[in-house]
């Protein structure tokens, strides 16, 4: 057991898997000698050799395409896309190829690839270093989308992802790499050091895909969140003074529908929180599912708190970011009705 921040936990997951499985290899822009712009692959090339962890051309489509070919051969490549905003040039490869290979080939070929990518805002990265693209993957049949919210889960989910025989988009909320940021950008920065979830086993372990975590039990309203928003939700719930139950979804495909339904049936209220802009975001799907399955238990409208329907704006980061105050307001609204 060691105390790890999220970067260290992810690095440890990769290290463990490189050690255990010769079919695991890592590539992506700047991941080799340099160890990645966020240091997630730090020292892995040095330790495991240049063919196990190496730099790729600036070509996201090429990276995913190459990874799929490797996966079809029998490897388990882990590809890094430097920022999730830059996954888009590889979208066709992910959707038309990775997601569909097993199905269309009648099971002859498949692509057990893991595509890691830092995503989300809160670092003054401007429009193209801040976006949250999970909705455009959640809609795609054949791809799983995993989003950890703390070091322990990050390592366990990443190992599960690498070991999975399905293609996985693994989105890392970059704002919480170094600490559990709760949306209060004007307060002292917290580190992971004192969080229980920063106690991470050094060896191999897994956190299963498709199982939500109940971060906080409560009676009055269910909050659904994932990634950095789990911490924002905690703060928002606290500030609202409302006894909310908080679920960390951990993966949005597969989704832990049973946990969601059980919680909303218990509380009778639901608020969904995500960073991505609202319209057409994954919150719509969650809202629809909850409504379909819990209609007769609902005491008030399901709320959605999300980024505004604008591109991610540099100077207005904190106006755009769905922080705790916005969640608290939605919780109060949910309780009023």
């Amino acid at each position, binding site marked *: 057991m060691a105390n790890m921040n999220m970067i260290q936990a992810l690095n440890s997951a990769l290290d463990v898997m490189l050690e255990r499985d010769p079919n695991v290899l890592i590539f992506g822009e700047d991941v080799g000698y340099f160890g990645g712009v966020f240091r997630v692959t730090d020292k892995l090339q040095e330790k495991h050799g240049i063919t196990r962890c190496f730099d790729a051309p600036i*070509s996201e*489509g090429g990276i995913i*395409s190459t990874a799929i*070919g490797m996966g079809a051969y029998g490897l388990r490549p882990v590809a890094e896309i430097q920022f999730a905003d830059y996954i888009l040039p590889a979208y066709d490869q992910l959707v038309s190829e990775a997601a569909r290979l*097993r199905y269309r080939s*009648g099971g002859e*070929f498949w692509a057990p690839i893991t595509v890691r990518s830092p995503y989300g805002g809160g670092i003054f990265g401007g429009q193209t270093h801040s976006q949250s693209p999970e909705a455009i993957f959640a809609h795609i049949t*054949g791809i799983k989308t995993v989003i950890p919210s703390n070091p322990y889960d990050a390592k366990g989910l990443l190992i599960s992802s690498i070991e999975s025989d399905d293609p996985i988009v693994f989105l890392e909320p970059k704002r919480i790499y170094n600490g559990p940021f709760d949306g209060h950008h004007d307060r002292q920065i917290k580190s992971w050091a004192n969080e229980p979830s920063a106690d991470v086993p050094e060896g191999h372990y897994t956190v299963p895909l498709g199982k939500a975590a109940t971060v906080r039990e409560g009676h009055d309203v269910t909050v659904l969140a994932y990634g950095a928003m789990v911490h924002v939700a905690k703060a928002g719930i606290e500030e609202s003074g409302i006894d909310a139950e908080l679920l960390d979804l951990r993966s949005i495909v597969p989704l832990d*529908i049973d946990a969601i339904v059980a919680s909303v049936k218990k509380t009778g209220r639901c608020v969904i929180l995500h960073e991505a802009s609202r319209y057409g975001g994954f919150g719509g799907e969650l809202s629809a599912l909850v409504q379909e399955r819990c209609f007769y238990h609902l005491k008030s409208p399901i709320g959605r708190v999300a980024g505004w329907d604008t591109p991610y704006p540099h100077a207005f980061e904190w106006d755009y970011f769905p922080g705790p105050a916005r969640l608290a307001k939605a919780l109060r609204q949910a309780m009023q009705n």
Partner: protein
Amino acid sequence: MTNSKPLHLHVPAPAARPGDEPSFKHLVVPKAGETRRPDVAAPEEEMRDLPYKLVRVLDDAGNAVGPWNPNLSPDVLRQGLRAMLLTRVFDERLFRVHRQGKTSFYMKSTGEEAIGAAQSLALSAGDMCFPTYRVMSWLMAREYPLIDMVNQIFSNERDPLKGRQLPILFSARDYGFYSLSGNVGSRFGHAVGWAMASAYKGDDKIALGYIGEGTTAEGDFHEALTFASVYKAPVILCVTNNQWAISSYSGIAGGEATTFAAKALAYGLPGLRVDGNDFLAVWAATQWAAERARNNLGATLIEFFTYRAAGHSTSDDPTKYRPADEAEHWPLGDPLARLKEHLISAGEWDEDRHQALTDELTEKVKAAVKEAEAVGTLGKSKPSVREMFEGVFSEPDWRVIEQRREMGI
């Protein structure tokens, strides 16, 4: 500098459209045997002339000549001829079967049969090709069961792809044939990744990727070549330049400005331009590129210069956009006729044997179609609807389980 002259927009147009005389006057066709064959280990800078030449072995009289002559045994040549002929016969029959409404779609590879056939035979069983829809002769050469092909084309109960895929978008792992898809181009880079994986593992398998000349315009083409070059992947990347991409001629893909083999120069790779209607030239070029790959010398780009003699697919009528008799004017002839002539002139084949083979293969195809028809044609038979819900992931999740239940199956 003053900007004064008005600019104008150039849009390429082919030499002939319907109603015009077919014209291939702009093509320079070098003599067979003329192009030199460098050592596979020669440095790239000594091979920069090759993309502008044309590797040809069979001359107009059907003789195999020059440094690229692979000196194949008559048995191998007959094997190739058989694969090509089978492809042609199969195409004819299945095209008619489509006309009869028994399936939704079909595509022929008429005039291009030498490519898949020679490459399939020239490479090893463990190697993998990443096909386009126009290299079915690869499967024919490796004796993929016809019945499986027809069942797939009918999407019937015995369809090996379980009814999930459009006709002819085969997958045949054991035959070195990677899963096809409707999207053009998007598997070209998989060939490179697969080859890199073989190198990474210290294995000895190499990969071969195909792409149409029209599709070279996709970003996928460039990305695949970039990775192949950077990591010296043991892969052979082939552009089948059949002059047409549905209704647009090769000039719309850049063929007006240079050859497709010249694209190799962008990546510091050797680029061969090869007569794709010449079974022996295809074989020799493949062998040369394979030797490079197997010796850790990296990738090769090959342009196969050929002609799409039939329509693009069952969905188009080529006489609407090119002269109806253009195919007959193609200066590089018909690959099947040329190989046949070569074998005959070598005393290894004759018209009778050819007729007998044609009859045999026609019967084989007929029998396969009949057998598949007995299972059922499109809409008359299909795999269990459960198959629609299987294979989305390695294990089904609650959504497909619920939805299957909703359908009552």
